[in-house]
C-alpha cells in the first residue's frame, strides 16, 4: 500500500537531510507507528505521503502510484483517498461539528443530500452522536479530535495518517482516540501514526518503526517505545 524506496529529503538551507535513504514498505490494513525524537524526520514522512513536499531523491509509492513525481493537477484527486488528522485538530472554528465534516464532502463535490446521510453516521461512529451542532470551542480537546477523525474518515479513505494526534490531549483522552483509530483500522483502513507518546505505543503493541536523524534504526512487528 505504501512504499518508500531510497527516499531522501533535504530541505533547502539544511545542513543534513531530514530523511536519508529511507526504504520501508507498509501493507494494506497495517497499523504502523513512526516514533523518534523531535527533528528525526517523522513529520517529513507524513508530508511526503500527502504530497505536500516532494522527495529530493527516491520514490514514494501509495497504492501503486508514484506520488513524488505526480503532476500538480492530479494531487487533489489523490488526496481524496487519504485522510489526515493533526495535533492541532485543524477544524474550522466558525462551523459546527456537522458542518466541519460536511465541508470536507461539499468541497469535493458531494451533494448536501449525501452529507445529510453520511455525516451523522460517521459522527456516531467516532462517538459524537448528539453533538453535531456544537462549535469547536464548545467541545473538549478529545471531542475536537474526534471531529477531525470523522472528517478524515468520512470518505472511507484507503489510508489514515495521523501526525501526533494525541499531542494536545491528556493521557486518558489519548487512549480513547487510539481506540477510535484502532476501530478504524479494523475496518481495513491502513493507519500510519507519527508520535512520541510512549504510553500509547506501549499499550497498542503494533508495528513500530523508529527513526533517528533521518534513518530507520528499528522496525519491529509488535514493538514498544523503547
Amino acid at each position: 500500500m505504501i512504499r518508500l524506496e531510497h527516499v531522501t529529503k533535504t530541505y533547502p538551507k539544511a545542513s543534513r537531510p531530514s530523511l536519508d535513504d529511507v526504504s520501508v514498505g507498509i501493507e494494506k490494513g497495517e497499523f504502523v507507528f513512526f516514533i523518534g525524537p523531535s527533528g528525526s524526520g517523522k513529520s517529513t514522512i507524513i508530508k511526503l505521503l500527502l504530497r505536500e513536499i516532494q522527495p529530493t531523491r527516491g520514490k514514494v509509492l501509495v497504492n501503486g502510484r508514484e506520488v513524488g513525481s505526480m503532476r500538480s493537477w492530479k494531487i487533489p484527486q489523490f488526496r481524496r483517498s487519504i485522510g489526515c488528522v493533526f495535533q492541532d485538530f485543524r477544524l474550522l472554528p466558525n462551523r459546527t461539528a456537522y458542518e466541519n465534516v460536511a465541508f470536507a464532502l461539499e468541497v469535493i463535490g458531494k451533494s448536501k443530500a449525501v452529507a445529510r446521510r453520511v455525516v451523522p453516521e460517521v459522527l456516531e461512529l467516532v462517538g459524537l452522536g448528539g453533538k453535531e451542532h456544537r462549535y469547536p470551542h464548545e467541545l473538549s480537546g478529545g471531542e475536537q479530535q474526534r471531529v477531525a477523525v470523522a472528517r478524515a474518515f468520512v470518505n472511507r479513505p484507503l489510508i489514515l495518517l495521523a501526525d501526533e494526534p494525541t499531542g494536545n490531549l491528556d493521557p486518558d483522552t489519548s487512549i480513547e482516540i487510539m481506540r477510535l483509530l484502532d476501530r478504524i483500522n479494523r475496518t481495513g483502513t491502513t493507519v500510519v501514526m507519527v508520535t512520541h507518546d510512549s504510553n500509547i505505543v506501549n499499550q497498542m503493541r503494533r508495528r513500530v518503526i523508529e527513526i533517528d536523524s533521518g534513518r530507520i534504526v528499528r522496525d519491529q512487528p509488535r514493538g514498544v517505545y523503547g
Partner: protein
Amino acid sequence: MRARYVLTEVFLGLWRNVTMTIAMIITMAVSLTMVGASLLMFWQVQDMKEWYYDKIEVSIYLKKDVTDEQRTAIEAAIKEDPLVEHYEYETSEQAYENFKQMFRDAPDMVSAVKPEYMPESFRISLKNPEQYQLAYDRYKDYPGISEIRDQRALVDKIFSILGGMQTVALAIAIGQGVAALLLVVNTIQVAAYSKRREVAVMKLVGASNWFIQAPFVLEAVFAGVIGALIAFGALAAAKAFLLDSGSLEALTDILLTVPWSRVFTTLPFLLGIAAAVNAVTGWVTLRFYVRV
C-alpha cells in the same frame, strides 16, 4: 450546488472587504470609461474621415480685383483639368450666405463681416484628394488668384486634435487601469489571507484547484463587471446630457453625431476587457503571490 457555494463565497468575500471592493470598482470604472471614450473617438474619427474626405475641396480664392478674362482663363483650365472631379463657382454673395449659416450661433461675428469681404472662389473636388500638390502647382501662377487652400489641411488639424484627446484618454485609462489591477492584487491577497483556514482544509481533503481559486477570481471579475456597467452608464450619460443636449452639443456638428447603437456597442467590449483582465490578474495573483 457547487455553483451556489462558490457564488455565496464570492458575495460574502466582497461584502467583508466592502471598502476595498468599492475602491476596486471605482478605479476600474474610471479606467473603463476612458477606454470606452477613446474607443468611441476612434470610431468617430474613422467615420469622419470617410465623410469629410469625400467632401474635401481645394478652394481657389480669387482676388478682389480679378478681371473677367482672368476668371475665364482659370475656369477654362479647371474644366480641362483631368485631375478635377467636378467644380463649383461661388460668388461673394453665396460665400456670405454660407458664412452666415455656418456661424448662425454667433451673431456678433456675422454682423462684423460685410458681404464685400467674402472673396469669390472656385471649389474643386479632386478625383484623388492626395494630389492636392499637383493642383496647387498648376494654378498657383495664374493671375487673379489670391490663395489656394487645401481644406484637408484644416480637417487634418481637427483630426490631430482628436488624436491628441484620444491619447490623453488612453493615458488616463492605463494609469487608472494599473491602479485598479494593483487593488485587485491586494484585495485577493487580503481575501486569501482571511480564508486561509478554509483554504488549508480544502487543500487537505482534496478540493480541486479551480474550486479553491474560483471564489477569489470571481470576486475580481464581478467587481470588473460592475465597473464596466458603471463606465457604460457614464458614457451613455455623456451622450444624453453632454452631446445630445448640453454644453458639447455644438461639437456634434463637426464630430458628426455619435449614434446610440455605437454607444451600446461599447458595452460588450468593456465587459469583455474587464472580465478577462481581472480574471487573469486574479489567477496570476493566486498562483504566484498566494499559495493557493
